[in-house]
């Protein structure tokens, strides 16, 4: 009798345990998680799991608070991959009040931040999934605003999921001070502008002042520029530096963007993969550098790559935008070159950009006027943008502000040994031409660098490496051919 009662109890508990998983899709019950072999474990825990599952349910429901009917929605959903935009809004958008890490309010509209890190394409996967369901989502669950990066901008811009900024009521005159390249990136194939950015990321060449003095007898940016003014000179300089014990760059991947931003055709034309001459020039130039022991083949951001942030790394220069030298090159660490103000900035062989974030309005947003206001305030308002430069060391997307700051002798960068690089950035950015972006850039650029690494390291011939590149791209984008 007791045994029977016990069995009934146990099996009832077990069944509740299993079924708890079916209730709602936000919680994962033990049974759904456990691989088949581990199922017995699920029997022991149902009692503990069931209440837990129930507790989480109300929390999930909170997201769908009843919204009052007004012509504008009461919830602004923002999708992004890090805290950057959030902190810009918190610090510089006038009406924003922060509640906690993932929410805030603007007036009577509550702002919900959906932050998914970029790693392993997670941000895009999440965004894609939500955007595809956008049409059927409740008004308050719709994405109102999301951020994108240049490498995959066209994937979103060239789709119906982003709204033309003109439809929000933003005119060309409003955006007149923005740099042309920031508009090129988010202009779709029909010439319609679909996003805006508050920052520009023109890149320059940061060189090690100590090394420059040692090898060339000067660390004056204008003098150094003569040694790196075009690629032939750059490569000749590499040999000089090699004799002095320095690598001209940490890795061949450092210069990749400089070449790939200056192409004359797109990666993909009519679904055919084509490799631009300037990119093949990168391959040939880099092969010479690697074979001559003048640079390495490390991946960007790897430990080996970052060694040159310190004097012992014996790296002469890095290509990068303002944020690289300000935030990523160990300037806070005692003993690094940046910490001693040991970097100098010069224009380098060709203009390029790296990074940057664009704001897009999602089609179907129920907060159009608020989105418009955020876009205008954050990307066109002179006062706010100047604040951003001063407070956050960003290079803002506003030629008036930047030109004024470039003239300002009181502004100088400690990391760059007292140099004011803004004029140089501004020059670089105005000459950029990005009309040759395609929606396949992210995959093509990544796979190209991966494949060529084999050629540089001598494990494959150039043809084999190119074959590998084509193969990898077709895996990513099955509709392409070569």
């Amino acid at each position: 009798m007791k045994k029977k009662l016990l069995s009934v109890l146990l099996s009832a508990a077990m069944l509740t345990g299993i079924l708890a998983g079916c209730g709602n899709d936000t919680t994962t019950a033990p049974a759904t998680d456990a691989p088949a072999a581990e199922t017995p474990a699920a029997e022991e825990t149902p009692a503990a799991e069931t209440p837990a599952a129930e507790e989480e349910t109300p929390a999930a429901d909170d997201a769908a608070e009843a919204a009052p009917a007004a012509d504008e929605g009461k919830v602004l959903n923002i999708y992004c991959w890090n805290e950057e935009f959030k902190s810009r809004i918190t610090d510089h958008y006038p009406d924003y009040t922060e509640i906690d890490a993932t929410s805030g309010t603007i007036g009577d509209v509550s702002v919900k931040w959906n932050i998914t890190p970029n790693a392993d394409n997670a941000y895009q996967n999440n965004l894609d999934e939500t955007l595809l369901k956008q049409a059927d989502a409740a008004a308050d669950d719709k994405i109102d605003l999301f951020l994108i990066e240049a490498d995959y901008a066209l994937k979103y811009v060239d789709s119906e999921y982003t709204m033309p900024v003109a439809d929000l009521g933003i005119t060309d005159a409003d955006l007149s001070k923005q740099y042309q390249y920031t508009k090129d990136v988010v202009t779709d194939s029909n010439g319609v502008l679909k996003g805006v950015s508050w920052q520009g990321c023109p890149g320059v060449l940061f060189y090690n002042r100590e090394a420059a003095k040692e090898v060339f007898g000067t660390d004056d940016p204008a003098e150094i520029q003569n040694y790196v003014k075009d690629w032939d000179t750059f490569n000749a300089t590499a040999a000089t530096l090699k004799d002095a014990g320095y690598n001209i760059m940490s890795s061949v991947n450092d210069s990749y963007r400089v070449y790939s931003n200056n192409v004359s055709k797109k990666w993909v034309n009519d679904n055919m993969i084509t490799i631009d001459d300037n990119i093949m020039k990168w391959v040939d130039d880099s092969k010479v550098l690697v074979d001559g022991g003048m640079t390495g083949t490390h991946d960007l951001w790897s430990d080996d790559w970052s060694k040159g942030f310190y004097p012992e790394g014996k790296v002469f220069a890095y290509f990068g935008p303002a944020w690289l030298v300000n935030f990523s090159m160990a300037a806070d660490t005692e003993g690094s070159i940046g910490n001693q103000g040991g970097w100098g900035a010069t224009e380098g062989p060709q203009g390029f950009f790296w990074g940057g974030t664009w704001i897009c309005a999602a089609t179907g947003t129920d907060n159009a006027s608020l989105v418009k206001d955020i876009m205008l305030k954050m990307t066109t308002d002179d006062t706010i943008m100047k604040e951003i430069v001063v407070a956050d060391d960003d290079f803002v997307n506003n030629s008036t502000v930047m030109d004024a700051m470039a003239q300002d002798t009181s502004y100088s960068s400690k990391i760059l040994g007292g140099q004011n690089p803004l004029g140089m950035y501004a020059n670089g950015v105005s000459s950029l031409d990005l009309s040759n972006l395609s929606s396949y850039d992210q995959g093509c650029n990544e796979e190209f660098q991966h494949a060529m690494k084999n050629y540089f390291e001598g494990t494959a011939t150039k043809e084999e490496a190119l074959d590998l590149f084509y193969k990898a791209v077709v895996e990513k984008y099955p509709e392409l051919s070569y």
Partner: protein
Amino acid sequence: MKKKSKAVRYNKWGYIFLLPFIIVYVIFQLIPMFTTIYNSFFENYMSGLKQIGPNFVGLKNYNSLFSQGDIWVYTKNTLVLWIMCFVPQIILSLLLGAWFSDTRLRLKGQRFFKTVIYLPNLIMASAFSMLFFTLFSDGGPINSLLIQIGFISEPYKFLSNTGSARGLIAGMNCLMWFGNTTILLMAGMMGIDTSLFEASEVDGATATQVFFKITLPLLRPILIYVMITSLIGGLQLFDVPQILTNGTGDPMRTTMTLIMFLNKHLFSKNYGMAGALSVLLFIITAVLSLIIFKVTGNDKRKG
């Protein structure tokens, strides 16, 4: 209640307690398996935000898998990696298992060592490969060490040479799994009737003879089990090479395993090609398991 039969029948409880397994198995294994096979006949992927398909294309996915020919390269890679890992692993495990289960040796601190050899398995494979990635990077500690003791003059690019890259992957896997195998084999060895060992001792058999004439033959069922599970695990090798080579399978995809190849199709959510590849993988696994089953002569079903 009293009037009912005194014998309480418990078999139905057995079925009820089997339910969780059956339900989980059907939902998460059986149904996905059939939908995978179904999906493999369709062209179905995402191009950016656009869904292409599903269009029925018959065997086109299989066709392109074979016509590219890469599948055999990856199969070979996977098997090479498995053999490189399995052979040293089984030797090591047999040796350790024999020592641990040998009552005459009276090894001290057995419990300690049994725990220690199992420990590498407790580390997440991803963390383990990150560790090795750092250790064996071009400017990593191993290279500095080798240069300092004068063994080499230039950093050796471990991850850019086929042999060393494969060796690292196989070595890591071996290190992670030999403890597990040792424990399985030891369990098998301890299940062997000790009177057999005693009898052989009386007959004057040497330790080697005992091992090869008694332990090994009687261990066969466990060995087969170990081999099949290891083979299936080996075919699904993914996390270690994926993280060690950053998903590229460098150098020149010589460390690209079948599952890493499968993962490549995830980027575009290419269910068709991924489905076809999965079905192939299923067939390869089944065939290999059958071969091992036959070759090791277990078809008498003695258990």
